[in-house]
């Protein structure tokens, strides 16, 4: 069985270490917050200007002045803080955020990422994605391995407009875990029930299977 969205998020949550500052994008990345191991503490950064995103508020706690970058109402954890958007991107640019998890439409085997625009369709804008990918130290992409038509999203080079160059470090898809290396996508883990042949068939970019490849542990 390939991984579902929650399982992709759960696998990514294992990349988190105690004391990390983390920025989660919209979509599958947001789900990662639900799987933070209980024995570690992390702090979530939201680019609209807060550190320490807490759980959704109760009805009584809802505050229109307290939202995350996805414009959802949230709460603030003990020890959190608020700041303006310039400082928020300042800390991102300065490399203070330890891990950034993003969704993507395409990732190239050199770490290029495309996730903001499909020509000919309504363009919504890049939001903070270009800033994040240009500066973050450790970018992990969470996405489906193929698009709805079955085409690989792990490519030799991106066909869609680029968001950032050579920036992705790791990709977690429904089929497995892939590190970006000079040799291309290095498959280190495969989803339960998914064969290496299937991964090979569905990966268009350069692919190397690790000697130590193993099943994803959730």
């Amino acid at each position, binding site marked *: 069985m390939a991984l579902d969205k929650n399982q992709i998020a759960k696998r990514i949550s294992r990349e988190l270490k105690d004391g990390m500052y983390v920025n989660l994008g919209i979509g599958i990345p947001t789900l990662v917050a639900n799987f933070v191991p209980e024995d570690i503490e992390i702090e979530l950064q939201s680019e609209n200007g807060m550190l320490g995103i807490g759980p959704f508020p109760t009805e009584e706690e809802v505050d*229109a002045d307290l939202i995350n970058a996805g*414009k959802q109402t949230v709460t603030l954890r003990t020890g959190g803080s608020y700041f*303006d958007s310039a400082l928020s*991107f300042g800390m991102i*640019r300065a490399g203070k955020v330890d891990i950034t998890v993003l969704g993507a439409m395409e990732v190239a085997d050199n770490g290029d990422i495309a996730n903001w625009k499909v020509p000919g369709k309504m363009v919504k*804008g890049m939001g*903070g994605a270009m800033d994040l990918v*240009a*500066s973050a130290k450790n970018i992990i992409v969470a996405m489906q391995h193929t698009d709805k038509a079955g085409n690989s999203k792990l490519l030799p080079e991106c066909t869609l407009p680029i968001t950032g160059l050579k920036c992705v470090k790791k990709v977690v898809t429904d089929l497995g875990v892939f590190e970006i290396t000079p040799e291309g996508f290095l498959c280190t883990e495969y989803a339960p029930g998914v064969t290496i042949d299937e991964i090979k068939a569905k990966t268009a970019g350069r692919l190397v299977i690790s000697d130590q490849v193993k099943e994803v542990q959730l």
Partner: protein
Amino acid sequence: MGFNKVVANAEEAVQDIRDNAVIMLGGFGLCGIPENSITALIKKGVKDLTFISNNAGVDDFGIGLMLKTRQVKKMIASYVGENAEFERQLLSGELEVELVPQGTLVTRCMAAAYGFPAIFTPAGVGTEVAEGKEVRNFKGKDYLVEEAFEADYSIVKAWKGDTAGNLIFNKTARNFNSVMAMAGKISIVEVEELVPAGQLDPNFIHVPGIYVHRIFQGSNYEKRIEQRTVRSK
């Protein structure tokens, strides 16, 4: 006389804004937008405005209201995805749009506030955002040269302000508001609570009054929520 920046209301605050003005408008989504001033601009009916704002509102709130009344010539924004009328005007060519990475957008405002003519940012290097822009290399990494914004006005919403124009913002409603409040040639601020100078703790001022030209007590805030997400107890 002296340092009293107070005007009576939104109508008075925006009364000299003319057609074709370039305006920074604070807020992130609908969070912290200057609701009273938007209403006053609609009432005033000024046209061909250029807005520098992270988002373009929704169909029936925020900048979306001024799209409906066809007052907007150009939007400079980072994310505009919540608005059907926006999409219609964009596709029909009635509306000009410049998309700017969010960090670049706010830092170009910051540059104006801090007196820098331009910034160097890695955001957008190698993308279509970089087209036609100067690239500088520092210590082996490429950066785009992005110029400070020049806006005729900035219009923002603060939580508390005093008669001298000192401002304090609430939670994530600070977002673009505090930076933009410092970045326009004329800075207009509406506040939820206006107090006499001396009543705000000077240690906790987010924007000092030197940047602010007009301030007024706002009223009837709707504070609409885009994504109301809650948990049970």
